[in-house]
């Protein structure tokens, strides 16, 4: 009798975590992002993806437990996008001041971070769609390590329907779609940020002046 009770308790103890896990949604976001069809800017960019970005996990405990690991997928997207929109790209650990002796100096340094993630699930909205909003803060520094722009950028993605899909698959699809939208905003909008536009204009003027001086000195290059 005592042995039967012991076995029953052990089974219950083993089943409780399983039942609790069944009530929560865990997603590791995975998606592929295509190359951008765009003319790269002629600068060397340094991308700083710190641990809080590369291992970012969104957790929600409102009504339903949702855990969404999107760090790897968003790192993949940012890596892809900045490779495509600049002529040269390097990964950096931190924002560092470029000295005159630095070989192949970096012109701009980018530090993205996640400001906010919001989910809308069918049980909340009564709609057959999953929606995801991601708000990023893209900080931009010049070669001297001085901040030149602080761009708050939001992206949105949704699934068409929840039918025939698990919650995990639907959330993965909605998040991938939001990340794809973030890519659109970066590719189309980055060079139109007023501070970045001014910086590019300034660089172009400096380059023109350099070319003029070189032409006056009779330098053929």
């Amino acid at each position, binding site marked *: 009798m005592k042995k039967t009770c012991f076995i029953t308790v052990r089974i219950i103890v083993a089943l409780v975590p399983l039942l609790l896990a069944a009530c929560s949604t865990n997603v590791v976001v995975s998606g592929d*992002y*295509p*190359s*951008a*069809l*765009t*003319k790269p800017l002629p600068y060397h960019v340094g991308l700083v993806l710190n641990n809080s970005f590369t291992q970012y996990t969104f957790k929600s405990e409102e009504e339903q437990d949702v855990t969404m690991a999107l760090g790897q997928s968003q790192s993949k997207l940012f890596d892809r996008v900045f490779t495509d929109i600049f002529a040269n790209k390097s990964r950096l650990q931190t924002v560092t001041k470029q000295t005159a002796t630095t070989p192949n100096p970096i012109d701009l340094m980018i530090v993205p971070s996640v400001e906010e993630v919001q989910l809308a699930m069918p049980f909340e909205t009564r709609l057959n769609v999953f929606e995801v909003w991601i708000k990023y803060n893209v900080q931009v520094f010049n070669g001297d390590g001085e901040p030149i722009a602080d761009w708050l950028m939001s992206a949105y993605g*949704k699934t*068409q329907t929840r039918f025939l899909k698990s919650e995990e698959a639907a959330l993965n699809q909605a998040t991938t779609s939001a990340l*794809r*939208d973030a*890519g*659109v*905003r970066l*590719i*189309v909008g980055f060079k139109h940020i007023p501070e970045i536009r001014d910086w590019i204009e300034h660089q172009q003027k400096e380059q023109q002046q350099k070319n003029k001086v070189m032409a006056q000195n009779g330098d053929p290059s």
Partner: protein
Amino acid sequence: MKGFYCSQIFTRTLFPILFPITCLAAVFLTGCSTSTIIDEYKVTDTHLDLHQGEQVVIMGRRHAGEYETEPDFINCIGGRLANGGQLNVMPEQEFLDSFYPWFEPRVAPLKLKRMSRMLEDPMIAERIKSLGIRYMVWVDGNTETTDKSGTFSCAVGPGGGGCFGFASWDKASIYEAIVWDLKQLDEKGRVKVETKGSSYMLAVGAPIPFIAQVQSDACEGIGNRLKGFFLEGAPAESTTPASVPKRDSERMLDHRGMIKS
């Protein structure tokens, strides 16, 4: 004597069971048929040129917040238009990836004027040329449930389970396809399709669904008409009068795709 006995079994036992089932099946099968109205406009009655190596791409509109054109529906039209390899149709996702980010919902051109401005970018124009994209068909619309009624419930017990009840729902598909010629930068025509249908679920023990194929009928209607833009002898040619330009050619299709007229 034996024959008389058999006919008595039939009239007394089997007939009372089979007759209502047959009647119900007949009612539901006619009930779950769909009706389709197609409105077509063509700029010219000649077939659209599509040379060797040129292809068509079919794209869904997804810029509106409240709905988006279903990717499955776009694939369905693409399949119909490809017609077993007669037309080269580029899959939507492949096109979106090749031109990323220029045809994503946030920035996709809504009008031809914007498209022509986009083609001024040499990178986009070169990619269009290298892939041989001649026509772009934009499909806008969706399928939604317009009405629901009835209820049924299922239960499972130690001795078995079963369902009981009746439910019905109506679905409506409204789509419009616009054909753009990327070489001449003009619109070649439009096809609008409206399909409606009712579905039923009868549950006496096991649930028996009678589903109206609303979206697939809309796909068939729009796909066949679009095929008529490019191919000779396609269904659109045989069902519409050859006047230029054409409008308001309406046909009713039942759930098997037969023309009711």
